[in-house]
């Protein structure tokens, strides 16, 4: 007998999986931005507060000028106080857009400030070992390339998986409805 492809459908399960996927992505994007704010430089706070999350594979241009008012009102060399803990970080400037539907989810995280390459230490000019620095040298590549980003994704997935609405498998009600139970 020739083999054939078998497909089956569990009513409610697809929706449940979608809920998990959407919630994990949204949570991860928010938490990654908080990491970047916590690890990154904080002088006037302008750069940190401008981290942006957009839905989809898109680009975030370096278009935003430094707000000279917020910069120059600080005495030379003085910084505004960086929030003490990671949890006190403001998060993305306009929140994280909620993904809809069952398509693959992509988020683009970026910072629109014109001087971002310097703030990210991708171009020299920020870090000075002889001065007070609010972020270590190469803080951004260290976060992305040495496992901290991966760890954040792991932790976010774990946190969402433990949420009551995910654990409770809301799709079961739908499943019962489909099966007439």
């Amino acid at each position, binding site marked *: 007998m020739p083999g054939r492809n078998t497909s089956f459908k569990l009513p409610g399960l697809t929706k449940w999986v979608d809920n998990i996927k959407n919630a994990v992505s949204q949570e991860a994007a928010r938490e990654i931005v908080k990491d970047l704010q916590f690890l990154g430089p904080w002088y006037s706070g302008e750069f940190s507060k401008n981290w942006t999350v957009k839905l989809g594979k898109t680009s975030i241009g370096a278009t935003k000028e430094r707000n000279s008012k917020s910069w120059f009102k600080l005495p030379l060399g003085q910084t505004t106080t960086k929030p003490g803990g990671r949890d006190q970080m403001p998060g993305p400037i306009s929140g994280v857009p909620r993904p809809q539907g069952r398509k693959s989810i992509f988020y683009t995280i970026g910072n629109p400030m014109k001087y971002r*390459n310097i703030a990210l230490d*991708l*171009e*020299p*000019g920020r870090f000075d*070992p002889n001065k007070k620095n609010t972020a270590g*040298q*190469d803080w951004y*590549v*260290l976060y*992305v*390339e*040495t*496992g*901290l980003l991966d*760890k954040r994704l792991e932790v976010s997935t774990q946190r969402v998986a433990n949420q009551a609405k995910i654990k409770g498998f809301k799709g079961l009600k739908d499943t019962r409805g489909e099966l007439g139970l």
Partner: protein
Amino acid sequence: MNLQNIRKYYEYPVIDCCNLGGVEFRAENTLEPGGDAIHKFCLARLQFGEMAEQTIACGPLSNKRAVFIVEYYGPKGIGPADAQDFMECVICKFHDLKGVTSINGPDFTSLDDRPYFFSRVSFGLQIPQELD
């Protein structure tokens, strides 16, 4: 393999490229690149990152992660060829090294506030045990 030997393993191929291209090599924590662009030079630094899950230096090596950053500084106004040749040499050398998990760059840019043409590449590393 201790941390200094790891640095040596990844720095030496860059020093080879410096010798080939007549570029001065400066390791991390040497002179600041803030002077005049009368000659070209290369800065390289190894930043150890997330590796404290089990141990730092005396146990399994699979948890040692790092970023190796190579920065080229050259005079402005001589075109990008020199920087491109140098970066190509470095990247080709790193293709043959063990433990390179990602390559980001190279990026080329003319620095606004310094008299240098600048290029940068970074390599994500997870130091393999067989390096010992």
